[in-house]
């Protein structure tokens, strides 16, 4: 019976990184078996849960970090996600348009000229942010915005990737100019993939699931936010980064509404409609950032 229990605990312990298992594996197993006592065949649920969370935290870079370090790391990851979204938006759309049979003509590309003009600076900003060269990244982000802005004015084309994403990314980079975050680990290393998944998902939905495009998009965003919220017990920086990402989108949305109202473009939103827009847009970031802030304070304690 002890052999069966040991095999079952060994399966759970395999979740830990190899180095940690080599260092601590025997000791953990000895403690687990002694705590289990005689007669137990199955691992205790609370032991399995604690081991799983402990293992995931080790993969996420198990060391203790201050609240400030968590926020800085999250700002860096959020900046990368916003920059990828801003830079890749036009490229993904063009790729799907050509892949679905659109003619490879200049007028197809013309609509995306502002984004494509800003693309080299956007890519530079992504790479330099990932390499920790935040001053260069901030400069590249500013140049990307200015390029897209100037080209938009010159060509009268709208920047589909959203030239206004670049100021959001710049705002996220500013704290990093003062204090550098520690290197990220775990799931955060793949943060740049998330906006690509959302962009590709949006295009797939638009092309193949036209009737439910909006639902699919909201489902993807909800899935990302839900996963980030659940991951708070392992690494609160993911929820912080996703919360900051969508807080930036909310700010852009409100800025857009304000500019439209000031210009007198389109229909003016009533107070109730405006409140609804803010409530819907703010709920996700509010929940994510609040949960992450509480978790960061707890994880910062010894």
């Amino acid at each position, binding site marked *: 019976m002890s052999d069966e229990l040991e095999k079952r605990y060994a399966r759970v312990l395999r979740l830990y990184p190899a180095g940690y298992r080599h260092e*601590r594996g*025997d*000791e*953990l*197993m*000895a*403690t*687990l078996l*002694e*705590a289990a006592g005689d007669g137990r065949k199955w691992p205790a649920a*609370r*032991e399995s*849960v*604690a*081991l*799983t*969370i*402990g*293992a995931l*935290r080790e993969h996420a870079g*198990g*060391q*203790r970090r201050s609240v400030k370090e968590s926020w800085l790391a999250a700002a860096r990851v959020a900046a990368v996600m916003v920059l990828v979204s801003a830079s890749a938006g036009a490229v993904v759309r063009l790729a799907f348009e050509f892949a679905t049979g659109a003619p490879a003509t200049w007028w197809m590309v013309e609509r995306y000229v502002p984004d494509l003009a800003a693309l080299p600076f956007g890519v530079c900003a992504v790479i330099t942010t990932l390499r920790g060269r935040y001053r260069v990244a901030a400069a590249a982000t500013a140049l990307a915005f200015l390029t897209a802005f100037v080209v938009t004015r010159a060509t009268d084309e709208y920047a589909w990737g959203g030239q206004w994403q670049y100021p959001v990314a710049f705002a996220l980079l500013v704290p990093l100019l003062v204090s550098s975050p520690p290197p990220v680990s775990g799931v955060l290393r793949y943060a740049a993939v998330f906006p690509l998944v959302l962009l590709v998902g949006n295009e797939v939905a638009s092309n193949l699931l036209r009737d439910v495009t909006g639902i699919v998009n909201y489902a993807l965003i909800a899935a990302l936010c839900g996963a980030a919220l659940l991951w708070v017990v392992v690494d609160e920086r993911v929820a912080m980064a996703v919360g900051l990402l969508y807080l930036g989108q909310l700010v852009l949305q409100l800025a857009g509404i304000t500019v439209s109202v000031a210009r007198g473009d389109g229909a003016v939103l009533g107070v109730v409609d405006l409140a609804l827009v803010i409530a819907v847009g703010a709920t996700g970031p509010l929940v994510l950032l609040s949960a992450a802030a509480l978790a960061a304070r*707890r994880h910062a*304690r*010894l």
Partner: protein
Amino acid sequence: MREPTYFILAALQDEPRYGYAIIKQVDELSRGRVKLATGTLYSALDRLTTEGYVRVVDEEIVNGRARRYYTVTPDGEAALRAEAVRLAEAARVVTDRVLRPMEGLA
């Protein structure tokens, strides 16, 4: 300091202990309130070792597996005492207030 961390340091005050012995001592000191899971214990020991509050003082092989004994360091004892004082001061905010009306009746 988290409550489990406090009790782990407290469990190491008297003598060096190994993993399961720490779990049992914490259970006893907290009168059953803090029941440490093994994963939680070793995460806490890792944090405490990194901070320099705990260190491995002995190691032996039992049933073919390593058994490490941990002890609290002087820095760990100081941190534990500081936390105990902080908790006592926080408790006095309530206990002093409860006692004062009773003094009026005396």
